[in-house]
């Protein structure tokens, strides 16, 4: 049984697959995938998650709205959130962090960087 559960919200199947591959290197981490913000919220409502990784630009509900919703959710308001996005402008970063994201990573990603941030946020040695 996994010690941690991670929700990956990403509309690009390729990017999602890549993130899941990267996270597979962490023992005891279960990954749940979602296509967009709304799907992410549904998955969040179905269980308890220890960390959320989300893209920003997604159809139906974008990543920033998802961050706001998570921060006002009674169960998941304290869950660490990692943003992985193509938006590299400083104002985008600041906005995401102000909304409550913990880490802001720009694409293209390197798996070791993502793993390192997830381990740091989950206090995995």
């Amino acid at each position, binding site marked *: 049984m996994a010690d941690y559960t991670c929700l990956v919200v990403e509309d690009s199947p390729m990017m999602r697959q890549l993130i899941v*591959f990267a996270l597979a290197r962490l023992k005891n981490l279960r990954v749940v995938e979602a296509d967009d913000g709304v799907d992410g919220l549904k998955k969040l409502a179905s269980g308890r998650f220890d960390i959320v990784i989300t893209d920003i630009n997604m159809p139906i509900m974008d990543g920033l709205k998802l961050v706001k919703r998570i921060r006002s959710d009674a169960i998941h308001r304290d869950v660490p959130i990692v943003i992985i996005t193509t938006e590299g402008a400083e104002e985008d970063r600041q906005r995401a962090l102000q909304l409550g994201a913990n880490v802001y990573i720009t694409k293209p990603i*390197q798996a070791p960087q993502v793993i390192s941030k997830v381990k740091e946020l989950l206090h995995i040695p």
Partner: protein
Amino acid sequence: MVEKADATSWEAYASRSLTVQREEFLETFFKRGAEFTNELLGEVHELQGQLRTLRDDNAALRLQLASDDAIRDLLVKIEALEKEKRSLATHIESAKQESFDYNSRYHEVELELDAMANLYVASYQLHIALTPSEVFSIMEQILMQFIGVGRFAVLLRRNTTGGESVLEPVHMFHCDGLAVRAVKGSEGIIGESVSTAVYYLGDPTERREAGAPLACIPLVFGQTVIGVVVVYEFLEQKTGFVNMDIELFRLLGSHAAAAIAGAGLLAKVGDVFVGLDEYRRV
């Protein structure tokens, strides 16, 4: 009478004298004996003292010798320990180097694994794309999300009746404001990349004219170049090419070309089973 008396007195005198002499002799003899005995006793005491001294000296010497042996043993032990210390220091240094090598190798393997995952996902997605729009969507994702390309166009080759080939833009990604136009098969950087089937990488730090390519990736299907991906701009956060980009360009060059050709043929035929009939003929 007198003579007799004298004789008697002489005898008495002589007798007494002998007694006296004997007593004196005895007295002297015993006195000397006592003195001699005293001297002997003194010498015995002195000898006993010397013997004690000698014994003490001997004991001290024995202790000294034992101490010297212990020091010698300790020196031997110190030497052995020093040797062991040197050996351990060498081992530690070697272990440190091994650990460093291991960490470097681990980092390299991590990056290789990362690259493999990128290539696997990109290749997998291109191979499951069935329609031209799916192929272009996958190419967008590879170029933008995996490489960090902000603007690009796909130009496909069309052979004219005059025998010349023209590269025509068929898909553009965030190319608003760029005059992306058809290019002759050997014109400029794009034409050269297509005619030589060699990708072109410009310097992202150098100023370029608007619409000038930053990179060209020829799309090669078998031995034929069917088109080219022209990269105009990176995403804001991407500052230069990395090794992984080259690997992905290579993959795009061949796999995307096959996907474009395959999806195009399927779209034209409209039925996958028409294509499968060919296998029955084989």
